[in-house]
């Protein structure tokens, strides 16, 4: 019986393993070309089609398994949440519109008051009324009454 050294036997075993792996790899490449174009690998082995399809299948399965009643319930919930959201949106719009209207109202009242105050001020009126060039064109009788009134005020001070 021929004596086989442990080194030689280990080399032979390694060559066999290498040939087997190369064969497997070529097979996997051929079958997965369409489903795994990027050649994504996991610990050396190319990830196959069923790895990608698994999750989708489970979702579909879940949907298929969901009863009609549950679906209706889910739709109802969705509609209700959408309706609540719309109500909230409208109510916020309403409050904003009311606040805006109130602000405009307050501003208008303040402006009207200011205009009234300006209209009532005597200083503005005096500048035009007691202008010399304007007084010159007024009748003397009017100037007489104005001067007598002013002199009465001055002498009483």
């Amino acid at each position, binding site marked *: 019986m021929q004596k086989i050294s442990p080194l030689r036997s280990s080399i032979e075993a390694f060559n066999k393993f290498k040939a087997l792996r190369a064969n497997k790899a070529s097979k996997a490449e051929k079958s997965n070309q369409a489903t795994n174009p990027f050649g994504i690998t996991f610990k050396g082995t190319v990830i196959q089609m069923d790895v990608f399809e698994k999750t989708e299948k489970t979702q579909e399965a879940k949907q298929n398994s969901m009863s009609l009643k549950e679906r209706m319930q889910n739709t109802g919930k969705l509609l209700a949440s959408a309706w609540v959201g719309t109500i909230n949106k409208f109510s916020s719009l309403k409050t904003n519109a009311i606040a805006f209207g109130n602000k405009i109202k307050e501003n208008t009242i303040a402006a009207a008051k200011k205009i009234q105050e300006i209209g009532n001020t005597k200083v503005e009126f*005096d500048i035009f009324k*007691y*202008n*010399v060039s304007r*007084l*010159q064109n*007024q*009748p*003397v*009788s009017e*100037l*007489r009454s*104005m*001067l*007598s009134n*002013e*002199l009465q005020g*001055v*002498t009483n001070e």
Partner: protein
Amino acid sequence: MNNRRVKNIIEALGKHKDAESIQVLNELGTNCPIDEIRELTSKALIRKNTHEALEIMIVNKGKGINDLSARVAMCAINELLALKDKQEAIKILDDTINMHSEKEVQDTARSVKALMSFSS
């Protein structure tokens, strides 16, 4: 006194073309107890440079150049001296010197006339 309105009314009456404005200034302005208003009135009347206005300022006792307040009288004299056309004023001064009943008024008119002859 710092009354812009009174000043403006007196100034407007001084520049007014209506002869009635002289009467208003004579009645209200020259009889006012406040010196400043009499001063403003005498200025306004003399600047008119008409016979009626100058007569009030030269002939009447206690008004214009004959005012009891030295300040008002001096202001009236200054205005007379500042006139460009002094003919009418000199004519009235001459009449006052010759025909006025009051000696005090005559003397004042004489002094003012002398000043005016020096200044012209």
